[in-house]
């Protein structure tokens, strides 16, 4: 008899885990709370992915296609886990979806509920949602996905754009001390895309550190060397309205040692990643642990990062911390293997 495995969350991590298990002949139940699969990349219409600027459809579209065409995967959309309990070495869950409630028994479980974007409105210094031309990287990602690169306030090409890094990350004041890992790379990628679209637009990146780790560094070099993107070392502490429908960024240039107040046509906040409400929700429902950063806790961050602290429940993707799609996919595969081994041993 085939194993039954539950995968919660249909983003890159969950999709990949489900596909791998299905190919092993496992009966997979894939539960997604949204009306579609693909996770955040789909929701915010990412169009081109770092590091190689390939169309997101190559990755996300492909994963969705493979999952949808596989009959070993039972798909639940607009769904959630209504209740969950341990049943010996197995698990029993009630899945509620648009088609009603269903109670099922599983040999093991993979949690891949991902992340939420930090909401910059909660940090008032950035005046997000007060001025139309102050947006964040997910807004810009979605705008560019829809082919729109212009200023939200007037639909015109921006003369200059300020990209502000580390919004909602590395900040005790907002409660997130960690680095969100992807926002630097997303920002240099977006700077390149903006410059490719509007070569006349000046793009400035305000940074504390630029963390385009590993090969992502290539994009950073490209942004500067091929597109004249200018980096400025310093932080912006206030955004106010300026003359001629601009927004003024008030900050310090720490290298020149002095304050600046410069009007920009558009400001893009590199908001980071958070565990979101789904992480504590999963922790409560499944009886697993949260870590001190608000993500799900890994059994051993180095030895077994895809295991939760509870036997039979595995973790994959951004639900355990900020990461890129490639990492989410790798972890989906690793969690699938572990969930399969656990199921095999106990069924």
């Amino acid at each position, binding site marked *: 008899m085939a194993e039954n495995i539950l995968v919660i969350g249909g983003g890159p991590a969950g999709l990949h885990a489900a596909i791998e298990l299905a190919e092993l002949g496992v009966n997979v139940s894939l539960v997604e709370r949204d009306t579609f699969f693909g996770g955040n990349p789909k929701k915010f219409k990412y169009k081109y992915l770092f590091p190689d600027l390939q169309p997101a459809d190559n990755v996300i579209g492909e994963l969705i296609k493979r999952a949808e065409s596989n009959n070993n995967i039972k798909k639940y959309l607009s769904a959630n886990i209504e209740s969950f309990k341990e049943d010996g070495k197995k698990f029993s869950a009630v899945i509620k979806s648009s088609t009603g409630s269903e109670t099922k028994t599983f040999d093991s479980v993979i949690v891949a509920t991902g992340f939420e974007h930090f909401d910059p*409105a909660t940090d*008032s*210094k950035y*005046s997000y*949602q*007060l*001025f139309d031309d102050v947006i964040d990287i997910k807004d810009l990602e979605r705008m560019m996905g829809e082919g729109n690169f212009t200023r939200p306030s007037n639909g015109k090409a921006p003369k200059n754009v300020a990209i502000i890094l*580390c919004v909602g990350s*590395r*900040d*005790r*004041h*907002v409660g997130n001390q960690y680095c969100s890992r992807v926002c630097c790379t997303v920002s240099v990628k977006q700077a390149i895309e903006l410059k490719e679209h509007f070569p006349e637009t000046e793009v400035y990146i305000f940074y*504390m550190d630029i963390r385009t780790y590993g090969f992502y560094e290539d994009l950073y070099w490209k942004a500067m060397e091929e597109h004249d993107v200018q980096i400025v*070392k*310093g*932080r*912006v*502490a*206030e955004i*106010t*309205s300026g003359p001629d429908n601009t927004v003024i960024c*008030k*900050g*310090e*240039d*720490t290298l020149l*040692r*002095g*304050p600046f*107040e410069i009007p920009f046509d558009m400001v893009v906040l590199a908001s980071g990643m958070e565990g979101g409400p789904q992480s504590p929700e999963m922790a409560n429902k499944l009886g697993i642990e949260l870590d001190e950063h608000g993500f799900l806790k890994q059994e051993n961050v180095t030895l077994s990062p895809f295991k939760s602290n509870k036997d039979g429940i595995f973790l994959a993707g951004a639900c355990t911390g900020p990461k890129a799609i490639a990492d989410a996919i790798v972890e989906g595969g690793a969690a699938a293997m572990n969930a399969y081994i656990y199921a095999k041993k106990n069924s």
Partner: protein
Amino acid sequence: MANEHNKNSERPVAEKGEHIIARHLIDDDAIKEEKNLVIDGVDVSGRWNTFIETRVDSEFDRSFFGEIQKTVVGSRINRCWQCGMCTASCTVTPLYRRFNPRAFIYMMQLGNLKQLKKYVDVAWRCVGCYKCSQRCPKQVNPAEMMEALALLIKKYFPEEIKSKHQLTIDEEVKAIYEGMILGHGRLDLANLHTSAMRKMGKTTELMSDKDERGAIFKMMKDGRALSVLRLGKPHKWHKSKDAIDNYLRHAGTLEQENN
């Protein structure tokens, strides 16, 4: 010129380093001149022995860091990673560009007294608005670090404080302080900000713009403004107020301490 120098004979040398080309690029402290100096029997008195010290920093003095860290106000000095959010937020920096809390903290971290000394005239100008501390991502509490700095300057550069820079509290700042603290029990950021803007001559920016008004309306609506107003007065404020009143009556002025 030459005549003047001759008249002024008690000076060790005419004018320190006056014959150095591009003299303006070199700090006073970096120039060494001896009135009378004989080296190996050769008299090199006066301008002949002029020597410019290297301007390369040759040490990081961590003993100083330790000293700051031991104080209550400076205990978090090890947290600062030089992001500049404090300077970017600062009420005073736009008025005195040389007042730079981030740079001062860095100088304190590295024990660079030589640099700090150059800022004795502005280093005490923090108005205690705490905007920096509110925004500092590492919760260094830079506002209080400025207090540590002030204490330190008093300790290490007492002469500079007395002679070179007549440190007096600006009457206007004093009035704002007394008004705010006695009236509201805390510093009123809006008031401080407004007076700073007025000083800079930025009167048009004060609420005149329709966007700015729109922003305020939005902040009222989503509750952000309320969270500021909700702060209220400190617990049992009247007791503290009486104490301050009392102090002011006896001391006469807030400046007493400084003199």
